[in-house]
């Protein structure tokens, strides 16, 4: 009996699957067709470049093309490790992102809570509109605004400093102050937009809880500290884990437009993975090095996402990505 079972089982399954597969395809044909434009588009613009990462393992030169250029295995990576580029880029990218994530979220929560305390509708509307503004302009304009404020000769900052009798600062040649400039610009740009999510979360808080706490004599600080903040914790964790996944992805537009393409003096503190790859492509024409850095970024980032997802699964399984 046992043998017949074993023999019959796969046959049956096979039959069912074949018929089922075809039928499944036929039943879903319209929905499948509706997905075709997206599938084609992602295939061309996202999947086709992936095999191109092979460039990272060769010594690419233009005349030989991809397939005839000499294969060098991990030589490009060795080069990047030895000259310290990989370490500097990783450090800058990860450090900036960590600061962005932590300070960004803290400020967003802060603004959301204050917005929630404010009762005047017109005030809320106007200030929200203004705080949103920086999010909706192009990175090029952000670069220009920074120049407007920081320029050595005409910048507003130096104008103010001089009117107080202080020395003007040479912003665009001093790498030390750039972490502050970049972080401040990031916060300026993202806080209004990001606080909406937290604001929406606070709106979901049950009023009765707050009223009950007030009857029990809780003051505003206690209400915020013991009810609102704990209520926001899950949102905070999810958002943080989401952004952890992109920790090796830079904010190219911001860095590139703030710093400029060729300001070598600022590289030590402003060069991130994506600006480096951009230069490798457009300035140094070193396609293999650029690809090696990209591959490193993708693989490393992939593992960070996996770990982040593992963490989400542990803390709140229903919110995990996959």
């Amino acid at each position, binding site marked *: 009996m046992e043998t017949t079972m074993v023999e019959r089982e796969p046959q049956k399954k096979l039959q069912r699957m074949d018929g089922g597969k075809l039928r499944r395809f036929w*039943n*879903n044909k*319209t*929905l*499948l067709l*509706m*997905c075709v*434009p*997206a599938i084609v*588009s*992602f295939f*061309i613009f996202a999947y*086709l470049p*992936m*095999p*191109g*990462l092979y460039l990272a393992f060769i010594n690419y030169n233009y005349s030989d093309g991809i397939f005839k250029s000499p294969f060098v295995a991990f030589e490009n990576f060795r080069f990047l490790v030895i000259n310290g580029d990989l370490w500097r880029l990783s450090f800058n990218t990860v450090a900036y992102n960590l600061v962005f994530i932590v300070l960004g979220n803290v400020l967003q929560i802060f*603004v959301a809570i204050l917005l929630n305390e404010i*009762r005047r509708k017109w*005030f809320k509307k106007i*200030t*929200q509109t203004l*705080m949103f*503004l920086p999010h*909706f*302009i*192009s990175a090029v*304009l952000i*670069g*220009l*605004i920074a*120049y*407007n*404020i920081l*320029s050595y*000769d005409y*910048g*507003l900052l*130096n104008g103010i400093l001089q009117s107080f009798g202080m020395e003007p600062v040479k912003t665009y040649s001093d790498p030390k102050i750039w972490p502050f400039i970049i972080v401040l610009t990031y916060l*300026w740009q993202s806080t209004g937009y990001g606080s*909406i*999510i937290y604001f*929406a979360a606070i709106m*979901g808080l049950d009023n009765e809880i*707050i009223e009950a706490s*007030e009857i029990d004599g809780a*003051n*505003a*600080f206690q209400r915020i500290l013991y009810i609102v903040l704990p209520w926001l914790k899950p949102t905070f964790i999810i958002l943080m884990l989401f952004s952890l*996944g992109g920790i090796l992805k830079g904010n190219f*537009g911001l860095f590139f437009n703030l710093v400029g*393409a060729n300001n070598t003096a600022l590289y030590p503190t402003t060069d991130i993975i994506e600006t480096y790859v951009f230069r490798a492509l*457009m300035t140094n024409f070193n*396609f293999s090095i*650029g690809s090696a850095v*990209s591959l490193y970024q993708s693989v490393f*980032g*992939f593992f960070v*996402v996996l770990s982040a997802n593992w963490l989400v699964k542990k803390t709140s399984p229903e919110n995990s*990505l996959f």
Partner: protein
Amino acid sequence: MEKTEESRSIRTDVSGMIVKGFGYLFISLFALCCLLPFLLVLGTSFTSESSIKKHGFNIWPREFSTFAYKIVFENPDLIIGSYIVTLGITIVGTVVGLFIVAMTGYALQRPDFGYRNSISFFIYFTTLFSGGLVPFYLLMTQYLSLRDNYLAVLLPGLLSPFLIIMMKSFVRSIPHAITESAKIDGAGDFTIFLKLILPMTTPALATIGLFIALGYWNEWYNSMLFLSPDMKYRPLQLFLYKVVTSAEYVRNSAAASNVELRDVPLESMKMATAVVATGPVIFFYPFVQRYFIKGITVGAVKG
């Protein structure tokens, strides 16, 4: 929300007043910080070049001048061309992109769609792993030959996994029973999407459409990578980028309008171009902002 406003305003304790007062103060200051840089650009664009050289950039122009705008519009051909290019890309991209995003989003949330998970993963995976800039560049320029082609800006910006996921969660709030009953009445999947679902998702379409449109309006990266300086009409942001980064470019366009080289208002022209390139979006945006807020909120709540 309305209810608490009343009940809380009745009991005003000291701590509540402190928090409120601080809230008004902090939010006002922050909102002001968000506004001032724009006024700085606007003010500088109306300042005479000699005043800039003497006093630097200022929010309030010490010597009012519209000279920079005169030069920008002296040769309106370039700026109008840029506007048309950007408008064209934005309109076509938004309409096509929105349609594809909505269609895909709808199909992917249908519980009875057998390939739902595999296609979702196919799309989502692109956010986890990518080929990076160099292979993308080679693909676009060497294999698809899209250099100096507006399609190089249009095509890669059509879809994003994020927007598809957003659409998915929007449509999920429409009961599946609607689709099912329409099916029983004999409607095909595409007809259901077009005639039933699309009209019901107007807020979602508005939000996602705005995201796409704004992305195209502010697009400069693909333009910079794939559109060479030889092109006469370039998207606005690339035009602005050139004006901001190369003095040469400003001098050329000033020379085209017969201005003496030493008279070129280099700095104020940068700002004037920025105002012209950004203007419409800023005026438009207070009206559309509520859609964004709605979109972000729904996206946040539904995940």
